[in-house]
């Protein structure tokens, strides 16, 4: 079997030897020019005048590009129509591209850009969610989702509680920064290498900017050095600007951002303010929940609509809400336009309800696990989400209970409580949290994929599909699917770069859907070729097609056998087509974006985590000391790759909730724009004990590729347990007498603030 096997990432050894080519490693074409993109220094201003003559005359400069040089449309937005490539008169965030310099070297381009004289007329800048709320500045109208009459249920409930949580944003910090290289081709066409999760969109955007059609632009990406959602829409800047420069100069142009520029110029995870009001009974069963979500979207729409929709779709997380009322405000601010990031709004929605559960448990003096189990989807519940989709595979209780057992949760919780009685300064906390994450793009039409497979006469196979590789292991998983179909060794399959001229009209590799979609499309293509080979073998041997078997690199039938390579040669000589395209579209999803009701998701992925933490109540210093995870990957296609996603997602989520802090000045300047000031988890932050298991009962009830489940995003939210554990430790700091709001990221400063806020009560 090639599937359900822990095969290493196809590029792992090349990566470890430094021979895997990333975009900046591709041998450079003749007379390559380099681009620097100059950015706004103002959060909100009119550009009164812009004198670029000194820039143009600087040494090595080939050309300078502004909005006026764009032959097509000055718009690189995914659908909002509101993202200019270069600011045209108005700037709306610090870091917004204004013009680009193209020169013989990157250094000369960078230096020349500093010679620009730009005169700004500042306008009032709205930086925070609060300022936007006061100014009523939005990127789109608020949305509401309701199930039953939540206000009434809350009013009549025996217990009521309300609270607020401030949830921070997050920079993607992919190790490979933004980069594109464009080459001039015949007929004025452009070939664009782009580090992008979304080649088709880059193709569309470049054509749109150049005033050409999609056939004139080819986009290619072999691999990215990480993406995490940050390369879904944002690479359009570098791709479109370099392509424009190609048209102007007739030479190849590369645009590679410096880390600081990358962090200032490109979008991040949305920060949220989460406010709730909840009514519940003596047992802790929720009767009604009212939630108001407010998010900072930045200067344009980008993907903020669907991201906030997904936040709303995940306000229930794994909990059955008899009544719910969810409002989502999407604020416009004069900061960089926030964008996709692993979880896509889900983490913010889910973190909120975990706080609700913990608050309820504290008020009733119960173990939060009991409140979780009481409210979780499953037997005896309505199993109806606030958006009307039925939860059919309510397995979360089973996963929670299994993990509580293997992790010794209850015993450890008791031990921690007794430790906290005697420990003066150090306090521990523990929490177990579930994950239920909806799988599918909420924009229904995106749930499609294509593949292209060539079988050469010598039996070797060329595999291509619309998905992109960013380290997540998509390419090896799809190759496993094809190897399994032909029953040939993986080494016989060439995994190739994603290109818009091989498979057209593809969706971003996003929403955890890469393997679900592209694996199925590749299977579809492989099966077409396999059926032709079966027909050929049956004819050759004069037997029924049903007698033909593929096994171990050979084809068998009526006592005869032939190697795969000999059969493909024979098929070629018999003039049989050995190339096929494949296609897939996700079934069963239907959903009304206007009312937010329906079945937006094909299925749900589940998981649960227990985190144990320790805090220093005098300094706020903290450490996650032990983590236990049980995660549902369906029937895993590649357990090693899936475990990598689970652990990596968890640690990235832990970073979001603990050490990664985006600090904006009141003038809109991002103060944390490099690893010196923006702290992602390091090796020392990894908990000393991490027990990670894939749920062995996992099997997708839907007919996904080999019954596997998507795994890219769901594990990110397992880290919510770290935040809940830290809040528990903060509560322990004052002997569980009162609970303080612990905002995120729970940096030492924030933990100390929370501890102090209780002591001051």
């Amino acid at each position, binding site marked *: 079997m090639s599937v359900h096997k822990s095969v290493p990432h196809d590029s792992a*050894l090349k990566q*470890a*030897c430094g021979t895997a080519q990333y975009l900046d490693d591709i*041998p450079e074409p003749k007379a390559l020019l380099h681009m620097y993109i100059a950015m706004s220094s103002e959060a909100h201003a009119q550009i009164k005048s812009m004198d670029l003559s000194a820039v143009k005359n600087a040494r090595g400069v080939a050309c300078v590009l502004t909005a006026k040089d764009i032959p097509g449309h000055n718009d690189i937005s995914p659908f909002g129509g509101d993202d200019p490539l270069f600011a045209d008169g108005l700037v709306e965030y610090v870091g917004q591209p204004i013009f680009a310099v193209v020169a013989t070297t990157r250094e000369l381009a960078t230096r020349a850009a500093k010679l620009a004289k730009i005169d700004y007329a500042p306008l009032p800048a709205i930086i925070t969610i609060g300022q936007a709320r006061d100014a009523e500045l939005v990127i789109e109208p608020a949305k509401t989702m309701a199930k039953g009459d939540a206000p009434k249920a809350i009013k009549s409930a025996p217990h009521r509680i309300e609270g607020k949580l401030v949830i921070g944003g997050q920079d993607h910090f992919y190790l490979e920064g933004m980069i594109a290289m464009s080459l001039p081709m015949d007929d004025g066409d452009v070939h664009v290498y782009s580090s992008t999760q979304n080649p088709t969109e880059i193709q569309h955007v470049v054509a749109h900017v150049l005033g050409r059609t999609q056939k004139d632009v080819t986009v290619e990406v072999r691999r990215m050095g990480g993406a995490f959602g940050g390369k879904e829409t944002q690479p359009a800047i570098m791709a479109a600007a370099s392509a424009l420069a190609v048209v102007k100069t007739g030479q190849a142009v590369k645009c590679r951002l410096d*880390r600081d520029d990358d962090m200032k110029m490109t979008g991040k995870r949305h920060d949220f303010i989460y406010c709730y009001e909840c009514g519940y009974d003596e047992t802790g069963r929720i009767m009604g929940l009212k939630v108001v979500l407010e998010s900072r979207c930045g200067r344009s729409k980008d993907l903020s609509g669907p991201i906030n929709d997904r936040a709303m779709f995940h306000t229930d997380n794994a909990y059955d809400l008899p009544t719910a009322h969810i409002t989502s405000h999407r604020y416009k601010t004069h900061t960089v336009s926030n964008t996709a990031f692993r979880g896509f709004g889900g983490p913010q929605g889910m973190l909120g309800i975990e706080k609700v559960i913990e608050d309820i448990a504290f008020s009733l003096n119960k173990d939060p696990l009991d409140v979780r189990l009481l409210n979780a989807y499953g037997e005896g519940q309505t199993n109806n989400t606030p958006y009307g989709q039925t939860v059919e595979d309510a397995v979360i209780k089973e996963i929670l209970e299994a993990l509580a057992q293997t992790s010794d949760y209850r015993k450890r919780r008791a031990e921690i409580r007794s430790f906290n009685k005697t420990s003066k300064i150090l306090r521990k906390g523990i929490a177990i949290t579930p994950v239920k994450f909806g799988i599918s793009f909420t924009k229904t039409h995106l749930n499609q994929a294509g593949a292209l497979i060539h079988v050469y006469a010598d039996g070797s196979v060329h595999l291509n599909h619309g998905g992109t590789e960013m380290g997540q292991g998509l390419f090896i998983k799809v190759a496993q699917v094809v190897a399994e179909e032909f029953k040939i060794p993986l080494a016989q399959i060439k995994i190739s770069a994603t290109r818009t001229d091989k498979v057209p009209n593809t969706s971003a590799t996003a929403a955890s859907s890469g393997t679900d979609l592209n694996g199925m499309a590749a299977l579809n293509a492989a099966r077409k070729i396999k059926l032709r080979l079966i027909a050929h073998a049956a004819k050759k041997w004069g037997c029924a097609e049903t007698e033909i078997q593929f096994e171990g690199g050979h084809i068998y039938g009526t006592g005869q056998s032939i190697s795969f390579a000999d059969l493909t040669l024979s098929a070629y000589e018999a003039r049989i087509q050995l190339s096929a395209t494949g296609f897939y579209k996700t079934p069963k999803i239907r959903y009304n974006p206007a009312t937010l009701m329906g079945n937006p998701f094909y299925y749900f992925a589940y998981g649960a985590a227990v985190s144990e933490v320790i805090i220093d109540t005098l300094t706020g210093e903290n450490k996650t000391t032990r983590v236990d995870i049980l995660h549902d990957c369906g029937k895993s296609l590649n357990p090693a790759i899936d475990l990598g996603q689970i*652990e990596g997602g968890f640690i990235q989520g832990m970073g979001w909730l603990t050490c990664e802090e985006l600090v904006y000045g009141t003038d809109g300047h991002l103060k944390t724009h490099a690893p010196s000031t923006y702290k992602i988890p390091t090796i020392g932050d990894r908990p000393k004990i991490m027990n990670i298991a894939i749920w062995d009962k996992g099997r997708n009830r839907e007919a996904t590729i080999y019954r596997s489940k998507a795994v890219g995003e769901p594990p990110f939210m397992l880290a919510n347990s770290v935040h809940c554990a830290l809040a528990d430790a903060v509560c322990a700091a004052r002997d569980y007498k009162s609970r303080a709001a612990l905002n995120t990221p729970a940096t030492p400063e924030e933990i100390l603030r929370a501890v102090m806020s209780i002591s001051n009560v």
Partner: protein
Amino acid sequence: MRDYIQFVLDGEIVTESRLDPTMTVLQYLRERRMKTGTKEGCAEGDCGACTVVLDELVDGKIRSRAVNTCILFIGTLDGKELRTVEGIGTPDTPNKIQELVADKHASQCGFCTPGIVMSLVALQTDDLPRTRDNIDEALAGNLCRCTGYGPIIDAAMAMGGEAGIPDNAQALKALQHGELVKLSANIYGTDKRFFIPKTVIQLAKLLGEYPKTTLLAGGTDIGLWVTK
């Protein structure tokens, strides 16, 4: 005074002159030698994607360190040996550490991987016991955004205890000839000069001649003046 620098690059003695003195080793590797295995992640010495191993002879013994090439100026290589991720193994003949990193699933997107591999090479040369604390210390300067570090720790634990004396220490020893050891060197670009005095007397003489010169030792600050 000699007007060239000499160092060992992946086992070969290299002589260079007329290089821009503020060219970083990373630029030199990627743009002059087409050794693109070493990556730029942040260009400020924080992420570790550009890590290589720098060997030098100290009292006749080889001292190996993992260094960030993104803020290391080319002149500082004089008399030393540089080992890169391409130099220590290839996919056909990988170094044991490279093989372990791949087999233990310690590389996802792979962009930090060459730096991680080289930090592990330096750790192996140090011959410290493979404890989690020593591994954490050795990799403290390498950021990975994908794996969560667990598989990297597994690979490091599996490295085995034997000290990895550089195979090519012969070249480093051969490099220590009279002219290189005794004479101060200088390289110059269009508007800058870089002096490498070998003795205190040479240093004093140079400072007398160029009193406004910038002194560079580690260069973690001065490197940023150039890259940022």
